């Protein structure tokens, strides 16, 4: 930034932040400059200057696909700078740091990585990912190489096998030349058997070395991919929850499976190809020049066309492949919806519409596949034709020289040349595709490394406090938290829960109740304030121990695709069958389990698809009972079940909460009447606190919620009565 353009000296500037929109919302770099006295907005020709003395705070106004940073003064609100979504994090951090600066006069701001490559300005998929266009392949290659360290013995064998493969490939054309020149055209027929043995030897060497190198490459590539997958899975279990916030599960699974697959394919096909062909290329070039340098020059003539043609075709093919992937994924998702949503499709008679849509998408996919196949066919035939031009030229000039009686070229030389030409040209046509796949493989590796480098939860830090036994005292002190930068969802919450208390969290959807639960579980780091468990700051407590002390029953419990027994026992893997049965009985789940054909061995299907909502919840409660934690968390545990099942679950919960700190969220307020205290949450703040009776007496927010719900229940029972 040019400070002088705004009449400033460098030393006057505390901080500046660029934005991509000017005040007229045109794409133009605009700077927001902070000095000791002013906040300055600098556009190309004009500046806006606001004295810090007049600013009470700054805030962010969220607009459609862009935002505005607004200065709040005692008189009015001044729009300072507009910015697109690309700068959301930067300005959220700026807002936080600036408001702190106003209060403390200390400037401190967290560094945010740009969403554009600083070198080529290409938009990046993720702030922490390096630009794939400017990727330094050597750095990634060295990191990949480091992964092979435990297998260096095998790597050495692979290199040796490659050298033998090349040597064995070079032999036969040269031996053919010797047979023709010495045995057929010459007089030394005795050497024929020796040459044939040599040729057989070359064949056997080629077979063995190829077998060894194929086995080694397959093993090494599969091993490296498996190592990477395992490392990725390990890291994915330990990264902070924020990592999952803006990533689709498909994208993450894609990185674990597709990117490792892409890398594996390159290691299997690309690396041996590059090794063998680079060595062969040099070896053949030397042999051709040593036989006849003039013909060797002729051989080189089509090379630029082969490389250029290959490049041209691949540049055409790559977008077609991407289009084909997009089309097939559209087909997949349509098919997926048609299968999973078959009931909806049938009940609303959507079959015709869905069929039409599928047909249209299917035709689009067909047309792309045809284009790919035509381009491929054109590519292969054209490349073959270019190669045959080289061969024809060698035949023409070679034969003319032999017929003219040139002693420097024999018939054997000519036939050896022809043999080597195919070995020489063959790899060239695929050279661009290999370079392309190497670029993709390096991009995959980079993406894999970006996950491996992701910040992980600190499970065991040296100075982590290991609590002798968690009692269940929970304290929030002015806790603030936002999932997305700039959008605070918990706005300075404070409370103190004593061990054994039952607390109900009440409030409308989106008020921040579940977020409080997430913060107690330390699934996210808070922005400011303190969460204290048994007198110790949550940041200092060993995460593993903390989570072992928590039992969570969420609104929709996640069950693994295994038996009921395994699903209950997963909270305490060393529990006996009797322990599991006791937990299931306490959760009112035992009766329905034993009535199933396979009892506790019943497989529950993907996400528990073979169980009803109430059954799933009771298994989740049994799991929590078996876990036997000092702190229990219920997040709308009974919201998705009927009244009869709810009663049964409530009984199970009553068995569970005795003597434990319990925090429960429930929309049906009647279920929280027995809570020691209720916290009414609204817009990220606690607006009321007290027991049911106390809150009813105060006639505040809670009382009106209870009244509204009672009216609703009465209306419902009347409707049911009318329906009969």
């Amino acid at each position: 930034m040019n400070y002088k353009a705004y009449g400033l000296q460098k030393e006057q500037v505390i901080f500046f932040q660029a934005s991509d929109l000017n005040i007229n919302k045109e794409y133009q770099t605009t700077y927001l400059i902070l000095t000791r006295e002013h906040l300055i907005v600098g556009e190309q020709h004009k500046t806006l200057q606001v004295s810090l003395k007049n600013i009470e705070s700054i805030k962010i106004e969220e607009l459609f696909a862009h935002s505005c940073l607004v200065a709040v003064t005692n008189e009015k609100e001044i729009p300072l700078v507009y910015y697109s979504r690309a700068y959301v994090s930067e300005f959220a951090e700026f807002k936080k740091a600036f408001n702190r600066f106003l209060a403390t006069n200390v400037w401190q701001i967290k560094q945010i990585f740009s969403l554009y490559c600083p070198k080529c300005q290409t938009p990046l998929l993720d702030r922490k990912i390096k630009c794939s266009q400017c990727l330094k392949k050597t750095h990634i290659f060295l990191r990949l190489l480091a992964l092979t360290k435990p297998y260096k013995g095998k790597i050495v064998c692979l290199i040796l096998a490659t050298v033998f493969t090349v040597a064995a490939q070079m032999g036969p054309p040269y031996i053919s030349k010797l047979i023709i020149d010495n045995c057929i055209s010459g007089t030394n027929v005795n050497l024929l058997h020796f040459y044939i043995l040599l040729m057989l030897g070359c064949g056997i060497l080629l077979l063995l070395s190829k077998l060894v190198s194929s086995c080694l490459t397959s093993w090494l590539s599969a091993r490296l991919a498996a190592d990477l997958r395992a490392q990725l899975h390990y890291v994915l279990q330990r990264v902070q929850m924020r990592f999952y916030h803006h990533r689709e599960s498909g994208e993450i699974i894609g990185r674990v499976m597709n990117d490792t697959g892409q890398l594996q394919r390159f290691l299997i096909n690309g690396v041996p190809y590059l090794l063998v062909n680079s060595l062969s290329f040099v070896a053949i070039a030397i042999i051709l020049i040593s036989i006849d340098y003039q013909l060797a020059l002729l051989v080189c003539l089509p090379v630029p066309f082969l490389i250029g043609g290959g490049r041209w075709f691949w540049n055409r093919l790559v977008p077609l492949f991407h289009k084909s992937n997009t089309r097939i994924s559209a087909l997949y998702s349509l098919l997926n919806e048609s299968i999973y949503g078959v009931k909806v499709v049938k009940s609303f008679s959507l079959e015709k519409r869905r069929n039409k849509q599928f047909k249209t998408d299917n035709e689009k996919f067909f047309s792309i596949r045809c284009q790919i196949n035509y381009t491929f066919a054109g590519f292969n035939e054209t490349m073959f034709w270019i190669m045959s031009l080289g061969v024809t030229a060698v035949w023409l000039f070679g034969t003319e020289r032999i017929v003219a009686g040139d002693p420097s070229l024999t018939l054997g030389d000519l036939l050896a040349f022809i043999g080597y030409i195919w070995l020489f040209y063959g790899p060239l046509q695929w050279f661009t595709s290999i370079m392309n796949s190497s670029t993709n493989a390096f991009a995959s590796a980079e993406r894999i490394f970006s996950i491996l480098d992701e910040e992980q939860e600190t499970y065991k830090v040296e100075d982590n406090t290991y609590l002798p036994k968690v009692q269940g005292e929970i304290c929030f002190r002015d806790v603030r938290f936002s999932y997305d930068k700039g959008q605070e969802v918990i706005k300075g919450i404070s409370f103190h829960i004593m061990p054994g208390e039952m607390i109900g969290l009440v409030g409308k959807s989106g008020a921040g109740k579940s977020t409080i639960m997430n913060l107690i579980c330390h699934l996210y780091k808070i922005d400011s304030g303190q969460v204290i468990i048994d007198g110790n700051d949550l940041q200092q407590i060993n995460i593993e121990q903390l989570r072992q002390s928590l039992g969570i029953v969420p609104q929709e419990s996640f069950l693994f695709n295994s038996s009921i027994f395994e699903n209950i026992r997963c909270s305490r893997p060393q529990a006996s069958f009797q322990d599991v049965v006791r937990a299931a009985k306490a959760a009112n789940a035992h009766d329905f389990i034993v009535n199933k054909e396979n009892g506790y061995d019943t497989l529950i299907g993907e996400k528990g698809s073979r169980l009803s909502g109430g059954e799933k919840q009771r298994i989740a409660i049994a799991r929590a009972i078996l876990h036997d934690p000092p702190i229990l968390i219920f997040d709308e545990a009974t919201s998705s079940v009927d009244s009869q099942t709810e009663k049964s679950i409530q009984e199970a919960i009553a068995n569970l909460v005795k003597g434990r700190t319990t925090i429960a969220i429930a929309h049906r307020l009647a279920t929280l009447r027995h809570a020691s205290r209720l916290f009414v949450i609204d817009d990220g703040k606690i607006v009321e606190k007290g027991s049911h009776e106390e809150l009813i007496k105060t006639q505040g927010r809670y009382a009106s919620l209870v009244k509204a719900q009672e009216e609703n229940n009465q209306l419902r029972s009347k409707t049911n009565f009318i329906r009969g």
Partner: protein
Amino acid sequence: MNFRLLKKHGKVYIQFEKQQEKLAKILWARPLTGRWKEISIVDEKKKEIIFLDSLNSIPTESRQIAKDELIRNYFLPKIIKVFETKSHRSCRYWHVETEKGPRKFLMKNPNRDFLCISQDNIILRDHIGNCYEIVSFRKLDRSSKNAINKII
């Protein structure tokens, strides 16, 4: 309609006959597929105050305030030329000229982010949620059409 919109200190207020004015926000019900059609006016707590089928049904002065507010709240630059498009991995890279200046952006999932509103009208969404509009595909120049066809 017995209400009017007012603008004070940069903020919009709604006032029904003889009632106190309330802070209001004006929103399109369908910002991508039905701009300048249905409008929702909500209060500070994001609760709808009134839903309008069209702006034409309100007095001229209020209509102008609503129009200005909608223009301020929504940012959907129109693409007038496509310089270059590129496919890399499963992403599509765009370099375009919009009415608001040149822009480079990345599209992650064309099935989701290339929305054909009609045969001719297209909305593009980049991987972070910025939106761009091609008002008329037919009216784009040949090289822009080729660049789009290359990747979509």
